[in-house]
């Protein structure tokens, strides 16, 4: 019993200090987040960028936000595939913010729910199994300042700034007699508020007013039995958007539908050990949306994944062993050749405690496709050298098959024909082959439960034979168009970084989160160096949550980001006064504030947020979209 409690303590302690970042429902509400994609505003050690403040491209632990969107998304630890052309628009997940109980963020390469995750993980937990009937409805809007106002009708006129958008969402659920059922709906409208972005979208919109529109519905069911558990989730989302398609060098109007089904469960088989299954089906169907580029994106991407996993081991050595079958298919007339791939992966992860203060975790995952195979091997050691201090060390080595990045598979194997038909000429150097990634991370952690957590980590990442793209662009008055795409399949380089992360809980329910990071690339090839220059070397953020009074909360977030560069525009032959094609983004400081208040015995929740309080120039690659001081308001009605 003592040994069990000791192991449990170690696991809980380690989880709290170094493995994962957690965003709770309270964090989401206190920060005044409106959309699911807003969670990037709260994730410290991921870099992100956006063209419209709605769709983000992101990357963890120093990876590039543009070249490889390799992070994976899970709903209740079941994979959900929402990637279209390398863009992961989180809002397309058919779950509203108000249905989320917890989000776990992982940055290190690891085996997560049996999947190989070199580029980070976002896992969203939707259900909270509190007995009884629950219902909620929320609505909110965002508005960016800088409108012309009445001056529109004078000689002092300036361009109109649209609303950032609005949202309506709600859901009902019931948990009774070990059975859960819930249904939710969300509808979001968004507009490009940045003038450059509006001009670009308007120039290709084909006559309609440029906007994003999302509608999604989700149905969940779960049931506990004495020795087994089963949970299913089904959702559909429709999204009209302007995706930034990097290979195309600009946005493309896309209408897309996501159909998703996920299922998981377990059965107890031996002394409480579990056998689990996971199944997911994701169908992404980009479709034609009126546009003046004459692009017809009639694609359908299907991903089917099935998994069986069992707990193994006993005492000081426990773990899991499992198998995944992953099937990817694309249906489009642009793909005359092979239109599907099937991959099998076998994995095992073991935790062992052979010494009192040393926990080790060893993971191996091997994936096969025809005659090819890739793998990820990972070792993590965690040494607790006093009651409150830890040292952990992670080593991982990843051999990645080209097919594992589906966006590369589409483009490399057949998809470039789509670009060529639309005037993009490409030149591929070398043959697409397996890439290798090595990561070493060492972390010092100090923690006093419920009071203080400190994490200092340093990392080194080495990449070889990865796929990098460079572009030459041409521009007209409003839009940059691709001309020539250079693809280097032998891109290699290294990055090294150091970061400090601290959470301090003060009396009177004040919590301060602090993060600072510096990253540098080392002796790299030109293309690697250039593409990584879009990732900021220096970032710093501080978030303060104040929650002393029961039905009030205040939060403040201060963020500094160092300068970055979007190298593709170096090659642009006709940049438009730096307005629409921004080569360099200057350092910036942003301050966000949120106040939240509950009314009527916590049956009504209201929040008001201000982002970019100083109205600083905050720009994002690759368009150079700027977001001025903005304010957000929302109200939620809760029935518990």
């Amino acid at each position: 019993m003592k040994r069990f409690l000791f192991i449990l303590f170690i696991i809980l302690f380690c989880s709290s200090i170094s493995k994962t970042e957690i965003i709770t429902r309270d964090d989401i509400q206190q920060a005044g987040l409106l959309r699911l994609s807003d969670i990037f505003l709260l994730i410290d050690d991921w870099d992100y960028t956006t063209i419209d403040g709605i769709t983000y491209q992101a990357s963890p632990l120093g990876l590039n936000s543009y070249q490889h969107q390799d992070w994976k998304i899970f709903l209740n630890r079941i994979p959900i595939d929402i990637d279209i052309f390398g863009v992961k628009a989180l809002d397309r997940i058919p779950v509203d913010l108000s249905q989320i109980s917890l989000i776990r963020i992982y940055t290190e390469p690891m085996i997560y729910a049996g999947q190989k995750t070199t580029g980070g993980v976002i896992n969203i937990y939707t259900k909270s199994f509190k007995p009884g009937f629950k219902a909620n409805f929320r609505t909110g809007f965002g508005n960016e300042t800088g409108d012309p106002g009445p001056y529109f009708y004078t000689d002092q006129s300036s361009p109109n700034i649209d609303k950032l958008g609005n949202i309506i969402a709600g859901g009902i659920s019931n948990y009774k007699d070990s059975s859960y059922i819930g249904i939710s709906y969300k509808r979001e409208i968004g507009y490009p508020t940045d003038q450059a972005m509006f001009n670009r979208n308007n120039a290709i919109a084909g006559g309609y007013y440029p906007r994003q529109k999302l509608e999604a519905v989700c149905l969940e069911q779960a049931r506990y039995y004495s020795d087994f558990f089963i949970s299913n989730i089904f959702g559909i989302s429709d999204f009209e958007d302007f995706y930034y398609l990097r290979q195309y060098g600009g946005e493309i109007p896309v209408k897309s539908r996501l159909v998703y089904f996920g299922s998981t469960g377990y059965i107890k088989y031996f002394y409480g050990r579990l056998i689990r299954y996971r199944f997911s089906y994701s169908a992404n169907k980009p479709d034609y949306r009126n546009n003046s580029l004459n692009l017809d994106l009639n694609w359908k991407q299907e991903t089917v994944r099935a998994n069986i996993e069992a707990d193994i081991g006993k005492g000081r050595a426990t773990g899991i062993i499992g198998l995944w079958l992953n099937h990817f298919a694309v249906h489009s007339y642009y793909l005359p050749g092979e239109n599907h791939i099937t991959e099998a992966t076998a994995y095992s992860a073991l935790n062992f405690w052979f010494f009192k203060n040393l926990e080790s975790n060893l993971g191996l995952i091997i994936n096969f496709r025809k005659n090819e195979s890739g793998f990820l091997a990972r070792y993590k050691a965690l040494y607790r050298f006093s009651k409150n201090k830890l040292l952990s060390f992670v080593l991982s080595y990843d051999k990645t098959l080209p097919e594992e990045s589906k966006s590369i598979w589409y483009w490399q194997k057949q998809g470039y024909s789509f670009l060529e038909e639309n005037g993009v000429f490409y030149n591929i150097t070398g043959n697409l082959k397996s890439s290798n990634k090595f990561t070493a991370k060492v972390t010092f952690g100090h923690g006093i439960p419920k009071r203080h957590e400190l994490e200092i980590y340093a990392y080194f990442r080495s990449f070889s034979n990865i796929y990098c793209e460079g572009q030459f662009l041409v521009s007209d008055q409003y839009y940059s168009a691709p001309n020539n795409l250079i693809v280097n399949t032998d891109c290699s380089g290294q990055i090294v970084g150091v970061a400090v992360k601290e959470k301090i809980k003060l009396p009177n329910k004040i919590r301060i989160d602090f993060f600072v990071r510096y990253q540098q690339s080392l002796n790299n090839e030109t293309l690697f160096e250039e593409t990584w220059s879009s990732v900021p070397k220096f970032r710093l953020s501080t978030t303060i949550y104040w929650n002393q009074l029961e039905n009030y909360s205040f939060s403040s977030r201060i963020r500094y980001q160092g300068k970055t560069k979007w190298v593709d525009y170096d090659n642009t032959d006709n940049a438009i006064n730096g307005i629409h094609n921004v080569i360099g983004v200057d350092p910036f400081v942003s301050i966000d504030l949120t106040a939240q208040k509950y009314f009527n015995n916590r049956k009504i929740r209201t929040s008001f947020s201000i982002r970019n309080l100083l109205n600083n120039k905050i720009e994002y690659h690759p368009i150079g979209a700027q977001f001025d001081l903005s304010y957000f308001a929302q109200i939620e009605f809760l029935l518990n």
Partner: protein
Amino acid sequence: MQNGRIINKSKFIYLIILLFFVPSVLLGQDWVERSKAFKTISISAHYLQNSNRNMFHNYWKPANGIDLNGESEFYFGKIELGTQIFSVKARKIEQPDFVAVNMYIGWGLDYKILSKLDIYSGFQVSNYYMNFDDDKIDVNLKSESEFSFGLKTGLKYNIGKSLFVDVSGYYQVIYTYHRIELLYISVGLGKTFETPKWLREFLN
């Protein structure tokens, strides 16, 4: 414009201090009076007279308006909610008249300086809605909303137990591309009463 931005930044630094840090430090102390919040409510009506002149007034005449205000004691200081309505007339036919509705929430402190006289200072954040009165205007441009920030200070004279009159100065910045800065003189009459139990429970 650059100078304007710099001035706005310094104002915003004060705003941060006001909005977050000072309240959190003050409210973090044990002397926050939890039992006081929403104990009484004051409802008042004010007449507002625009008294400054700047670029905005080259196109529109100074506007007068009314302010309907509800105010209550808070854990620290007072919190207020209200709506101001202005009818703004253009000087030339090229510009439309418009109706502005400013819905605000604010916080402030008052101090008793004489037995019946209080001094009040606070800030407001609001949504400044404009509806332009011209049939030729595109329907999508006929109305517009913008963020606004205001500072207020004034004197309140209590007549008897519940009635009061007040006079105050109100400075407002509307965050259009060219900021609109307006200064108002306000006079008003109000009544204070104990918050009904159901309303106090709702607000708490």
